[in-house]
């Protein structure tokens, strides 16, 4: 990804406001931007969701195919998550195979879905050792204004929840809803000069020292985490973000229903 430049005056502006406990767009430190979720956006997908998180815009789709299971999980379906930072979404995204940022994004989303056991992979086995359902989750960023982790995760959860497995198309009986066990939610925050800000915008991400994504389940238990960027976090900051993720996760979950 090409380095993105940011004017010193803009950086100063963020820092000065933060010193007075304020954010550029007037939000509280633990406040998400406005979120809209449009499910079934793409008819050719088995499930899809377009999520707008402020100016960040992400489209997630699910395709189901049959295939061979992994040897170590012969009686489980397969989850495959992929993210594309397409150049349409930002002047800093370049065409080509997924770079390290796209791969990190896909893996963090995948981890939250996989480790929360959101999808009942046992129910996606057709013939053990031979044939299982493969669930492809594809994430496309359309407009990039920060916090791709939460926008993509919300999109993936909403898309999976709306997925109908096209069994009849594959001669495997009647179509059925993708079996969902729970709704995990991810919340991402950044640390800027020891202040914690939830749902960072692109400008906030650019001045941030460290980032933490915490994915929790309905019980508030932690299912996945990812610390990013070059700075550090204190244990107290981490605990604060976990507590915030539990609390805000409940609110986000209501949006998916």
């Amino acid at each position, binding site marked *: 990804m090409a380095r993105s430049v940011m004017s010193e005056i803009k950086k100063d*502006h963020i820092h*000065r*406001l933060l010193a007075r406990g*304020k954010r550029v767009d007037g939000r509280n430190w633990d406040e998400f931007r406005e979120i809209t979720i449009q499910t079934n*956006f*793409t*008819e*050719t*997908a*088995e499930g*899809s969701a377009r999520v707008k998180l402020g*100016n960040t*815009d992400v*489209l997630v*789709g*699910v*395709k189901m*195919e049959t295939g061979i299971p992994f040897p170590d999980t012969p009686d489980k379906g397969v989850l495959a998550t*992929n993210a*594309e930072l*397409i*150049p*349409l*979404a*930002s*002047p800093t995204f370049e*065409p080509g*195979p*997924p770079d390290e940022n796209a791969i990190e994004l896909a893996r963090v989303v995948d981890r939250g879905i996989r480790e929360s056991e959101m999808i009942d992979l046992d129910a996606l086995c057709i013939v053990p050792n031979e044939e299982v359902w493969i669930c*492809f989750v*594809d994430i*496309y960023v*359309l*407009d*990039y*204004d920060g916090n791709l982790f939460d926008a993509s995760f919300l999109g993936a959860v909403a898309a999976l929840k709306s997925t109908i497995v096209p069994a009849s198309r594959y001669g495997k009986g009647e179509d059925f809803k993708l079996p969902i066990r729970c709704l995990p939610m991810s919340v991402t925050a950044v640390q800027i000069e020891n202040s914690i800000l939830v749902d960072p915008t692109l400008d906030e991400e650019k001045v941030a020292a460290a980032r933490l994504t915490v994915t929790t389940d309905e019980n508030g238990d932690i299912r996945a985490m990812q610390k990013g960027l070059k700075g550090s976090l204190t244990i107290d900051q981490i605990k604060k973000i976990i507590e915030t993720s539990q609390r805000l996760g409940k609110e986000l979950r209501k949006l998916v229903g």
Partner: protein
Amino acid sequence: MEAMRLIDENGLRIDGRKVDELRPIRIEAGVLKRADGSAYVEWGKNKVIAAVYGPRECHPRHLQDPSKALVQCRYNMIAFSVMERKRPGPDRRSVEISKIIAEALEYVIFTEYFPRTSIDVYIEILQANAGTRCAGLTAASVALADAGVPMKDLVPAVAVGKVDNQVVLDLTKEEDNHGQADLPMAIIPRTGEVLLMQMDGHMTVEEFNKAIDLGYKACEKIYQLQKDALRRRYAVEEIETFEEAQHPQTAMEE
């Protein structure tokens, strides 16, 4: 050989259209924040988004032209835009489509105004149902206008084809798969020049003449929709009063 009848005895097609009728088309300009210009097109069951970046510094530098801007295009179908999941990344088809769209757009853009720069056009097919290159080019030219890139004209595009031995406008996927010919075209409405033309299948010269006649008429309609979209995007709701102009409500902090 024809296993499937695509036009019934009343001359109506599977989706109820007449042979010279377009699918419903909706165009919206300025749909993305980060891009310099953008447009979204829904065309029947096609969903297409286009974004423009530039004129901006040209990378890689050896492609820079000291006399004009370089027009680059990337046409891409997203993985779940078709029934059978498409593996991400360019294939030979999308590389070819990207090339002919870039060439079509280069002709209408005043590239000599922006030497050494690059104008990058990105077209993403979010949902495909035949005619995506035409929908993509139609969207791309609106996105260029939205980006303020000076152009000779907008570029409407449409596909004409042959189905059940009849010349038919704007094929759907079923008609394309079982039809006899497909002829995508794009024109400059003000001059009538042809900017994009491809054909595959089998047509007599008479059928071809009929097809381009249908295509030109349809492009005129699409051209109106393109202009309407830009007018809606840039329409001024009401002129602000002097008082409001002197005391803007949203003052920047500090």
